[in-house]
């Protein structure tokens, strides 16, 4: 009997291993083009750097995408939209953040209306450093994300579910100068 249960568990593990293998090899991205990073995406997608050879394809809507690319600084107003988009995506979902603006504010470190640490508001799986990252850097980030998925370390979406209250609290704190009634949603 024990063996039987063991067999069953083996099988389940094999299935989830297969799921990891396929989700690694087909990352569909949604590029939320803010800041300066958007300009680096066309060369990555077209013939010069061709990211489709890794199975990475651009998608039109958040429902269809697996990876959310935040390509630069975020104002408070944009952050609302980013969170809405992130919550519309189907898990497992991942976030890649571009440039120093998303890490520590970058050259907008003392700005009154941009957020400084993206990690506080949505879970980020991979950061790309630089002000502006090169296309090679972006492809490198995708390869890194694939490695993390393979090792089972890209668990940002689970973190978001687990610490939902904490994330919401942070989001509300930065939104609280906006209209009261709207705050309830985000």
């Amino acid at each position, binding site marked *: 009997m024990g063996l039987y249960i063991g067999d069953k568990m083996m099988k389940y593990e094999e299935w989830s291993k*297969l*799921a990891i293998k*396929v*989700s690694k*090899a*087909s990352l*569909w991205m949604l590029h939320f083009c803010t800041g300066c990073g958007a300009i680096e995406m066309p060369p990555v997608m*077209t*013939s010069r750097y*061709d990211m*489709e*050879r*890794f*199975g990475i*394809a651009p*998608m*039109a*809507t*958040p*429902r*269809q995408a*697996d990876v959310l690319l935040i390509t630069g600084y975020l104002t408070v107003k944009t952050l609302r939209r980013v969170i809405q988009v992130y919550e519309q*995506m*189907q*898990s*497992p979902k991942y976030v890649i953040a571009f440039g120093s603006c998303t890490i520590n504010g970058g050259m907008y470190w003392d700005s009154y209306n941009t957020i400084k640490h993206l990690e506080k508001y949505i879970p980020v799986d991979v950061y790309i450093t630089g002000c502006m990252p090169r296309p090679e850097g972006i492809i490198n980030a995708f390869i890194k994300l694939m490695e993390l998925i393979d090792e089972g370390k890209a668990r940002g979406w689970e973190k978001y579910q687990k610490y939902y209250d904490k994330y919401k609290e942070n989001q509300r704190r930065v939104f609280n100068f906006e209209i009261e009634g709207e705050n309830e949603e985000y």
Partner: protein
Amino acid sequence: MDVMGIAIKVALLTAYAVIGTCVGLLFMGIGRKIIARVHNRVGPPFYQNFIDVAKLLSKKTNISHGWIFDLALLFSISGILLTLLFLPIGGVQLLSMEGDAFLVLYLLAIPALGFALGAGASGNPNAGVGVMRALVMMLSYELPFIITLIALMIYYDTTSLATIVRMQSINGVKSWAITMPPFMLAAFAADMALQGMLMEQPFDIPVAPHEIASGPMVEFGGKYLGSLMLYKAIALVAETTLFVDLFLGGGVVAHGNFAFVINFIVWLALIFLLFILSILIAASFPRFRIEQAFGFYWKYEAIIAAISLIWVYILVIK
């Protein structure tokens, strides 16, 4: 029919559906590779679409927008599967009846209606625009397609697909409809209609990812999108097979006991060639606007089809 016969038939039908899906996914992957080569890129591996479908089906959360949304998907997939099973593949037709050429036309309209239901249930304005465009596209490409179909029916004096295929396979390649001058015109019109049916550029107006965020599919994610990809794969095989059955003798070149194997391979090669043709057209043209597509089909294609119809009529009367 005895129980054994029914069991064998069900097994065969399932096998056809599975083969159709796999062939469709394989072709879609090869199509992506070819488009990448046209763009001077490396492109994804040819099995990429299998991986994509597997990934979508293994997603952990799947948002539904109510039971109409769920049923609409089933509606589309079952409609296209039924179409596939009614088409002679390599000369073998599993389901058949009198006048199935008309039936197939009706069945081909079911998936579009399924899309309309699903898009309506999702309540997204982009989906609404996409469905409107899809229905207008259907209206435009069906006119030339039906005229060519009528020309074929008049010439072969039948409304059954199996008879059309059988009459074209009497002398092998020489008796294919496309070898006759009037049907060359008709085949051109029908191929353009096929381009619209497959929703490839320049007629990918309903899904247009950059204008209306992929139209009817805008709210589909996870398992729903995976099923839609399966639908697309089957639709690709069914629609190219319909063209092969009508103009290329269904790929039937051999007769005899084991002729089925050869015919099957020829059928596969023919639908592959058709698909490559449509991919190459897609890779070299930008997207039409909806009124341009409508004008293209109703002005030029319909006239070409009508000329072939009149030509055939004169041939038959003589």
